[in-house]
């Protein structure tokens, strides 16, 4: 398990996402209302770039015609067949046990901590004044 510094917090404002490759794995990092998430950018269904899809809420219903719409922005919809995935766990909504993509823990670390290490060598210039987004693979 290695921790990678991927961006300064300013580079990833709420509602944005960043695409990168770490160890040849395509990954996307999201900032959703201040919380950070990381997902493997590959849909378990047919291999689409899952993380390029829209972020939506979760539609649930107990009665035909009634819809409760919650968890806004926490469900990512695959750009191909539209499968819904929970950004927190990477699980698909339709068959959570069978179909899931990897979710990676993402945290925010202050520059002072990052400077100390141990982090895998990266291209970001780190300064102690900023906070950084760190993903663990």
């Amino acid at each position, binding site marked *: 398990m290695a921790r990678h510094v991927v961006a300064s917090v300013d580079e990833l404002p709420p509602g944005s996402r960043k695409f990168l490759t770490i160890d040849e794995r395509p990954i996307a990092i999201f900032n959703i209302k201040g919380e950070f998430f990381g997902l493997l950018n590959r849909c378990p269904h047919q291999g689409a770039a899952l993380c390029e899809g829209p972020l939506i809420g979760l539609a649930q219903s*107990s*009665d035909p015609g009634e819809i409760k719409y919650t968890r806004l922005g926490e469900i990512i919809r695959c750009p191909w*067949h539209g499968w819904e995935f929970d950004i927190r766990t990477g699980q698909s909504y*339709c068959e959570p046990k069978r179909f899931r993509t990897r979710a990676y823990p993402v945290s925010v670390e202050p520059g002072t901590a990052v400077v100390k290490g141990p982090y895998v060598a990266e291209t970001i210039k780190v300064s102690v004044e900023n906070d950084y987004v760190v993903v663990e693979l």
Partner: protein
Amino acid sequence: MWLPSYLWRLHKFWRGIRMETPWVDRAPLEIVRSNIRFSLQPIDAPSDPQTLNRLFDHMQSDELPLFSTDYPHWQFDGDAALPEGMSPALVRKVMIDNPYATYGRLKQAAIRETMS
């Protein structure tokens, strides 16, 4: 016998466009298996018993078919209301167990009769 491929298609699309009908909170396959039953005739199956049994296997549930004849309609020939090649266990399910499980009052009527 059109049922398996219909359900495959429905399931395939449901996984992606579930949110249009979110009150469908279980896979349609499951809903059919728990809530829908199908009368047997007219059975659109081939005469070959091996293929027929594969088709029953495709349905992934032996609780779906209910024996029927469609009498007095002409669709089958005399005694051939039940296709050949069905195992005795399946025949029993289709002709007895499934109907009893589906029509709650049938069983009660039968019990009353045997007791009187």
